[in-house]
């Protein structure tokens, strides 16, 4: 009875010090100032930020999974130089998100690479990141995030694929199943645990999208975590900042629980 408790004591201590206590302090801080939540809800940036964050998740995650899965399946066929492709595809994982945002800013900004290229082709440039063009701003953030964060999903799926024995696939092939049928009925079901991990991770990380969007659009395209930064560091109101952070936390927990529920093993 004693031993197990002793064994988990370090992690308990860690969780308490680094998770439970800051969480409690955060909730306390948000509740400490009366009206922090109503300030948050009344702020003209909050609902657009919530909408943009939600939209980003809905658009970004299916795209990322489609890309990552395609890339992983391509690699599974062991083409020549597959090691090199793998290396190239995971490079964005090593780039800090702020740096990635600044790189994409130099592409999309009014006199950036994209507009220079368009002008070279004889078209006139387009203000991609102007506040008037919410759609193109959003697309720019999606593209930058797609480039930056797809490799994470890709690595998880590649690892998952490597854990699937080829026997099942070959057996299905022997029985005459085509590629798509094998993919749908043999590979994907066995990939489910990896997909689940990747989905939860990516959704939580997408809820926390910050540096890329901050570098690209500033507050022109508000996102939830960008708003916590704005309230904490620019407006110096930690209560409202933590209130927004708690919303992000609640959404993250809801999303994780939702995925676990949706993908649970049906026996």
């Amino acid at each position, binding site marked *: 009875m004693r031993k197990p408790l002793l064994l988990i004591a370090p992690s308990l201590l860690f969780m308490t010090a680094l998770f439970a206590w800051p969480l409690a302090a955060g909730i306390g801080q948000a509740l400490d100032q009366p*009206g922090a939540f109503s*300030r948050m809800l*009344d*702020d*003209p940036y909050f609902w657009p930020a919530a909408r943009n964050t939600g939209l980003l998740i809905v658009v970004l995650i299916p795209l990322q999974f489609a890309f990552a899965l395609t890339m992983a399946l391509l690699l599974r066929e062991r083409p020549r130089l597959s090691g090199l492709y793998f290396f190239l595809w995971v490079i964005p994982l090593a780039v800090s998100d*702020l740096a990635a945002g*600044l790189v994409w*800013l*130099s592409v999309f*900004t*009014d*006199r*950036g690479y994209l507009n220079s290229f368009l002008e070279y082709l004889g078209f006139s440039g387009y*203000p991609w*990141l*102007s*506040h*008037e063009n919410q759609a193109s701003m959003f697309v720019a953030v999606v593209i930058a995030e797609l480039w930056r964060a797809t490799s994470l999903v890709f690595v998880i799926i590649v690892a998952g694929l490597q854990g699937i024995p080829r026997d099942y696939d070959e057996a299905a092939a022997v029985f005459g199943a085509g590629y798509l049928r094998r993919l749908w009925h043999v590979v994907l079901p066995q990939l489910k645990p990896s997909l689940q991990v990747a989905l939860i991770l990516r959704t939580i990380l997408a809820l926390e999208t910050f540096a890329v969007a*901050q*570098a690209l659009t*500033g*507050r*022109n395209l508000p996102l939830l975590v960008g708003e916590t930064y704005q309230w904490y*560091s*620019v*407006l*110096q*109101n930690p209560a409202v900042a933590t209130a927004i952070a708690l919303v992000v936390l609640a959404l993250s927990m809801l999303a994780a629980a939702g995925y676990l529920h949706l993908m649970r093993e049906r026996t």
Partner: protein
Amino acid sequence: MTQSVTRRAFLAAGVLTVAGCGGVSTSGTGEEGAVDFLSTQFLPVEERQRFEKILSDHVKSAKVGFNPVDQSAFAATVQAQADANRMQLSLLGGLHGDLAPQRDRLSDLDDLLGGLGDRQFPGELTTLARLGGSTVKYIPWMQATYLLAVNKKALQWLPSGAKVDDLTYDQLLAWATAAKAGNGGKPVFGIPAGAKGLYHRFFQGFLLPSFTGGQITTFRSPEAATAWDYMKQLWAQSAPASTNYDFMQEPLERGEVLIAFDHVARLINAPKSKPDDWLMVPAPRGPKGRGYMLVVAGLAIPKGAPQADKAKEVIKALTTAQVQIEVLRQNAFFPVSKADLPGDLPAPIALEAAGVKAQQGSSGTIVSLPPVGLGTKDGEVGQIFKNCFKEICLDGRPVQGVLDAQAAKLNAILDEVKVPCWAPDPAGAPCKVA
């Protein structure tokens, strides 16, 4: 690219702020008999070095340990030393808004100001220096403000009868409209409405005082609604990319805009390469007068200062015309005492100095200050004005509804801090939207 540069600089600055939180040394020189000078100004290291050079070259009466810190460290240090009855600082330098909350901890300087008659400080500055009381609490040190920068290319569209250095707001609108039409539909007027831009100062210190005579108390008055209606029309004739501009000198230099409003320090590089193409003119005037925001820094001596007499000598030295010009030349803060500008000033500084002088000397001015005594709430109050701009000009919401809603939020913040109003609002306590 410049936009990226400013964002990069801002993010880098954020990192530095975090990295620099290690602590603040307030010990000054530590030398016996030295004047410890705590300042919120000249914190960037180049400015600090240039100012230290000015001190060592021109202040011979005492050894000065110059110690610039950020505003919160300034307030905390002064308060802590005063409360502990162990004042080690002899001289304080800060903006009006930095000194005002310390009022009760500052010595009276009426005798010193009386002896500095030859400096000919403008009357509005010496009035402010009383911090709302009867005695003088600081000696004006230097000033800055906001101006309109005009590329002479834009003068071709100036409406007839309008004088560029004495515009009304209506003429500015007519000018921006004509210029947009004349420029093939591309707007030429811009304001710094980017994430780090100071556009809220335009509303707080220029537009609203010119239309309403106040900044806070008149926030939701019918005159304020007229002002915002005007702003909506002006915005329709302004460069939409303004929401990406942090420092107007950058789009001005690139030629993206030809007329722009900003802080003098954020306009200074625009005329650098071709000073002859540029004008720096006073802000327009409205129905109530020419509202303009004065950023004034002062020098004060805390009660119980160990080297009070030497500090007074330092103040005398710093307000001489020679030192004032030197500070202008090196750190681009404008003189508060009468100082004839020499002919060899760098051209952009000379242009701005002329604009600053014209603005201060013009008739019917309404001086306003950046919010005083709000401390960390300054950002939130500024955001209220930015929210008005966003909702009225960008989102097209009805003016009075926005003003009423934002006034409620402004009052909620003001209820927390309970400070007296600052110019141009009458100093009634506590400050509130009527």
